[in-house]
């Protein structure tokens, strides 16, 4: 896996425009890779998996930087009152109004979609696992997550944007 290190580093560096930030992000990627390694073992799949994890980590860094800059410019940031203590999560956390809205929209999802979204987004389970727990096919598990997230995204995009940037 470490064989992909150099090209991954170049990739993250291109995304962030800074070598220091890239090393920082990559360190987290290796921690993730060791803690919960990819399910596949063929080099091609491992490689694309590493690119996804690294790219997502870099995206998170970009988004966090942007919010930090906004906060420094005097815009109030949203702090989850009692969420988990990771700094990125706190910045992403929704305020009381946001939570109320999430609750409201989660309530409108059919039960199966609600559980599927939970398993995918919070427990981060593989679709095969979700299918097993829901007692349906993998395709149907995928569809349930997709439909549920699509609705939540559509409904919550404005709330989220307002809370994070207003």
């Amino acid at each position: 896996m470490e064989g992909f290190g150099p090209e991954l580093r170049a990739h993250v560096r291109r995304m962030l425009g800074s070598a220091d930030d890239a090393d920082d992000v990559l360190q987290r990627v290796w921690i993730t890779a060791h803690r919960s390694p990819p399910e596949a073992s063929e080099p091609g799949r491992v490689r694309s998996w590493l690119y996804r994890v690294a790219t997502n980590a870099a995206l998170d860094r970009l988004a966090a930087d942007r919010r930090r800059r906004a906060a420094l410019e005097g815009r109030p940031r949203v702090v989850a009152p009692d969420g988990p203590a990771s700094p990125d999560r706190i910045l992403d956390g929704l305020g009381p109004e946001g939570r109320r809205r999430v609750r409201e929209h989660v309530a409108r999802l059919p039960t199966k979609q609600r559980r599927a979204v939970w398993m995918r987004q919070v427990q981060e389970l593989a679709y095969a696992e979700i299918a097993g727990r829901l007692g349906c096919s993998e395709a149907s598990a995928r569809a349930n997550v997709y439909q549920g997230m699509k609705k939540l995204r559509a409904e919550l995009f404005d709330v989220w944007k307002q809370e994070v940037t207003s």
Partner: protein
Amino acid sequence: MTSQPCWVSEQGVLAFVEGDLEPEAELAVARHLAECEECRDQAAEFRALEDAIASGVAAVALRWHAFGTPFGRMYVAAGEGGLVRVSWAPPGDDAWVRELEDRFPDRPVVHEPEDPVLLAAERQLHEYFAGEREDFELPIDLDALPRFSRRVLDALQHEVGFGQVVAYSELARRIGRPRAARAVGNAVGRNPVAIVVPCHRVVRSDGSLGGYGGGVEFKERLLTIEGREDLLRAS
């Protein structure tokens, strides 16, 4: 940055963020995100929204766990605010999940046997049944109940300790509603957090035991654990 329309669509960016692409496409989109600022911004936005949704869903979800006790299989459920349900009534896991979903239609219900609050509840209930615990140290969330019920159950939880009993009428007096004994009885009867909120310690003013949601034999056994066999003989 490019002024030409991208070969990666918004759907493609989203699929990448969600980990839904095949390896080849995944790699190609990852590389594209390093080149195209517009798509990168879009992807970062999707990521952040996804996180916000996940934390929101996590905040409202109810986690449940089941375990064996001398009283049969026992079920507990908790949300972010603490325990919302302790029960041994349901005749199986499916019935229990359905009941929770009916009771809390706006919250995802998930089996989470590792949840710290639920594990603490299991441990403390075991200790209680073994006669090794008198007070529960567990967060309880009764926010879903009407205000009157909450007052009744609060008073019961905080003022009627291990081995004590109180009459429905006395409990009504304690919350400043002396004429509401019947309503107090209803609130106690619908206590969602059995044992931890000690509805088994509420008896009739004539000294008889009165009813119990889980069956009166459970009430007798709980009072026996608390050293109150005297009440059983009286009724």
